[in-house]
């Protein structure tokens, strides 16, 4: 080839120069576990469904959500949202209002009549589920998705368990509950109401069930010995709340005293107020800080005019005169009696001292370990008797709807594995996407959307739902506040900031890859990744 004067080499592109050989560290894309997902007792992929909600694909978001939890409208109302306590956005401004978006998706599903995907091909296996509470419904749903037939036996007259007989209407409207239960039953699940199982082994044998899942809940109210005259009206919180559902509205009188400090105490106090009690007074032997009830629920109750007498125990009751004793906390934080007494006038005493489980259906089952009134299960939710699994309030755990739904999902996977003669192995969890792994410069300031609250007069007099939902506009806003911690959301930052064009964009939904031929390992991409989805690894030299 004839070259111009003083030119001796062929010219060419710098692509011949593989600058990747300079590298001592290489960037690698990673997926980290978002703290919300990690905190969710129901094992939801929260970030995963928010991703679709962000672009207004609500149906797809809902479908993604119900892969793990079949009851989003309900969950968005009654869950205590541990996800939001873990949310990294709280360190930036305020946590994403996850439960409000979840509720919005659940309500959209109801509005548009969205259905679950049809169940998998039938496996021919049949599982007996005892109890139609959150755990039982959840396990039946997940079993149906895996192709197994499920029959639920429920001792009560209606499905829902403690969601119906424990959570008042003003927190969970019954049309919401009914719709979500019906959608689960529509998957071909048999529900037998008013069917109490007294002997689980006999019941399984009789109808040839291959496995059983027990979730009978904790419906037996704890009692305490308070000296009282026969004339005194003493009720327990469980029967009061149950009575609200079965049509026997309890007569509570004008002045009601509630004894206990849990969420049930608040629920029953707020119910009493709505039933017309002029005074609803909670007596609790410890302090506000020690109260097991959630603070926001206490605040809602106080707003509605519920009164609380902290650090007091009820000593005895004579007709309408209650004698209470003042307590003090000792150095270890335990309440101790002081000998100082006081009296209160009231018409009714409602005990809200916790609940026990009726385990009589397990009397004839060998090999079970029962501790503190609940059945022990192994990591796979199986009791000591092979093929009998259990979950919800009857196993050792926090007693919430979300935990129960999570038990159902976990048990279904393990029942599936057990029926197939294997063991379900959960995939290894990714490293948690901590706040310090994020580059928060790239997120703009966006304060949390506040849900509307019903006005106080209607809250005191009716069972209308207290907390309102989001509309489409602010649900979209709220979804977009998600930081996508630890997982690429295709913001193109790495692709943009690489001085060497060593990041290859693969197209929408396909993310990116590094071209290690040219990547010099400067680390700019990792540093400028908003969500911490790139890590630098030392090269082996």
């Amino acid at each position, binding site marked *: 080839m004839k070259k111009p004067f003083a*030119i001796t*080499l*062929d*010219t*060419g*592109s*710098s*692509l*011949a*120069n593989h*600058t990747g050989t*300079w590298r001592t560290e290489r960037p690698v894309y990673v997926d980290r576990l978002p703290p919300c997902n990690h905190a969710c007792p129901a094992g939801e992929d929260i970030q995963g469904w928010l991703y679709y909600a*962000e*672009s*207004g*694909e609500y149906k797809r978001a809902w479908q993604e959500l119900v892969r793990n939890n079949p009851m989003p409208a309900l969950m968005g109302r009654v869950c205590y949202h541990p996800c939001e306590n873990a949310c990294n956005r709280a360190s930036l401004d305020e946590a994403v209002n996850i439960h409000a978006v979840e509720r919005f998706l659940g309500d959209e599903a109801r509005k548009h009549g969205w259905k679950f995907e049809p169940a998998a091909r039938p496996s021919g296996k049949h599982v007996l589920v005892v109890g139609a509470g959150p755990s039982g419904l959840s396990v039946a749903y997940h079993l149906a998705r895996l192709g197994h037939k499920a029959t639920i036996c429920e001792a009560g007259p209606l499905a829902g368990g403690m969601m119906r007989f424990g959570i008042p209407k003003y927190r969970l409207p019954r049309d919401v509950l009914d719709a979500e239960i019906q959608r689960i039953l529509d998957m071909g699940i048999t529900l037998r109401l008013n069917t109490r199982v007294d002997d689980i082994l006999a019941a399984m044998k009789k109808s040839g069930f291959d496995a059983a899942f027990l979730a009978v809940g904790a419906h037996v109210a704890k009692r305490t010995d308070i000296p009282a005259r026969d004339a005194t009206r003493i009720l327990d919180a469980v029967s009061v709340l149950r009575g609200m559902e079965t049509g026997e509205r309890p007569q509570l009188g004008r002045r009601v005293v509630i004894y206990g400090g849990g969420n049930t105490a608040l629920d029953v106090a707020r119910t009493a107020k709505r039933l017309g009690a002029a005074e609803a007074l909670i007596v609790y032997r410890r302090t506000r800080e020690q109260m097991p009830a959630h603070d926001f629920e206490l605040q809602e109750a106080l707003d509605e005019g519920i009164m609380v007498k902290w650090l007091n125990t009820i000593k005895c009751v004579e007709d309408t005169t209650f004698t209470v004793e003042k307590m003090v906390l000792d150095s270890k934080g335990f309440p101790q009696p002081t000998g100082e007494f006081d009296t209160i006038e009231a018409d009714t005493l409602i005990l809200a001292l916790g609940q026990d489980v009726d385990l009589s259906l397990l009397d004839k089952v060998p090999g079970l370990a029962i501790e503190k009134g609940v059945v022990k299960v192994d990591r796979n939710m199986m009791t000591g008797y092979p093929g009998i699994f259990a979950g919800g309030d009857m196993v050792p755990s926090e007693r919430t709807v979300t935990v129960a739904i999570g038990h159902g999902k976990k048990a279904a996977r393990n029942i599936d594995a057990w029926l197939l003669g294997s063991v379900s192995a959960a995939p290894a969890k990714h490293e948690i996407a901590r706040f310090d792994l994020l580059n928060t*410069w*790239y*997120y*703009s300031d*966006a304060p949390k959307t506040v849900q509307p609250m019903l006005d106080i007069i209607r809250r005191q007099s009716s069972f209308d739902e207290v907390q309102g939902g989001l509309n*489409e*506009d602010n649900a*979209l*806003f709220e*979804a*977009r*506040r*998600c*930081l*996508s911690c630890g997982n690429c*959301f*295709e*913001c*193109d*930052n790495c*692709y*943009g*900031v*690489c*001085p*060497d*064009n*060593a990041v290859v*964009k693969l*197209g*929408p939904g396909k993310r990116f890859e590094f*071209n290690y*031929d*040219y990547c*010099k*390992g*400067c*680390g*700019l991409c*990792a*540093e*400028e990744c*908003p969500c911490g989805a790139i890590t*630098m690894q030392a090269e082996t030299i």
Partner: protein
Amino acid sequence: MTLQQPVKFYQTGTFTVGNRLLAGHARAVQANMRRTNSLNSGHRACQGCGEALGARYAIDAAMQASGNRVMAVNATGCLEVFSTPYPETSWQIPWLHSLFGNAAAVAAGVSAALRVKGRKDVKVIAQGGDGGTMDIGFGCLSGMFERNDDVLYICYDNEAYMNTGVQRSSATPPAARTATTTAVGQQPGNVFGTGKNVPLIAMAHHIPYVATASVANLRDLEVKVMRAMGVGGARYIHIHVPCPLGWGSAPADTIKVARLAVESGLFPLIEAENGEISGRYKLRRRVPVEDYLKLQRRFAHLFGKETDVSTIAAIQAIADRNVSVFGLAD
């Protein structure tokens, strides 16, 4: 479905390079899978080079604005050396290099030649570092401005002669250590009260468009290049590009350092039309100058056994003055 709400949350429309929620035309040029990569892979710039990044940002945007009809004239400097070691080139555009000090004059000539040939479609860009622009090429630059030649001149300012070994230029900030302003004596580093502000000098020529930009603010940079490409006559864009080697900052921190220069007020982002300031970037999260200085070894002598409080205060005063003069805070 259509989105009612303007996209401004989550990853946001403007802070990150792209945003899947935005329509294609509203995204950054750098987010495009088919961006031109005018400065291609294989160039020999250091790890985390701010100038290589700034040059691709600017020229890709200019290519998009002109339908890929751009010719560039390059002054001698890092950008020229690392992109074109004989016989290779990283440029995917017609590109011309002559001398250190004459890029503006050569570009003016290219522009004149195109005019003679009737090629109105081709746009001419001249580019160089702060040395080639502000010191050695300054006479040619001023001439190009006063004649209002149809050229966009882009200065990549890394605040010293990095290619030859980090010697002081008229863009070197006070107190910075360079090979020729060592950190010894009563007043270590570069002397206070020296240097010049070329964007303001360019404005004094009353040319159609002058802007400052930073690699830390891509969307702002692209908008400014597009705007400059949309008008005729002499235009000037001054881009702040950190140099990990010369500044002694970590290669991974290039954009962070540039961002802190902007957010401290030391490098104001402004634009001016016909000699009048027409736009300014309001600081989003104002930071003290220490945050910026601490990341760079060229200022390490300020943070020795005893922190040099008075020098830092003098630098803070420069930042504060910028904030008030250019109205960077609300």
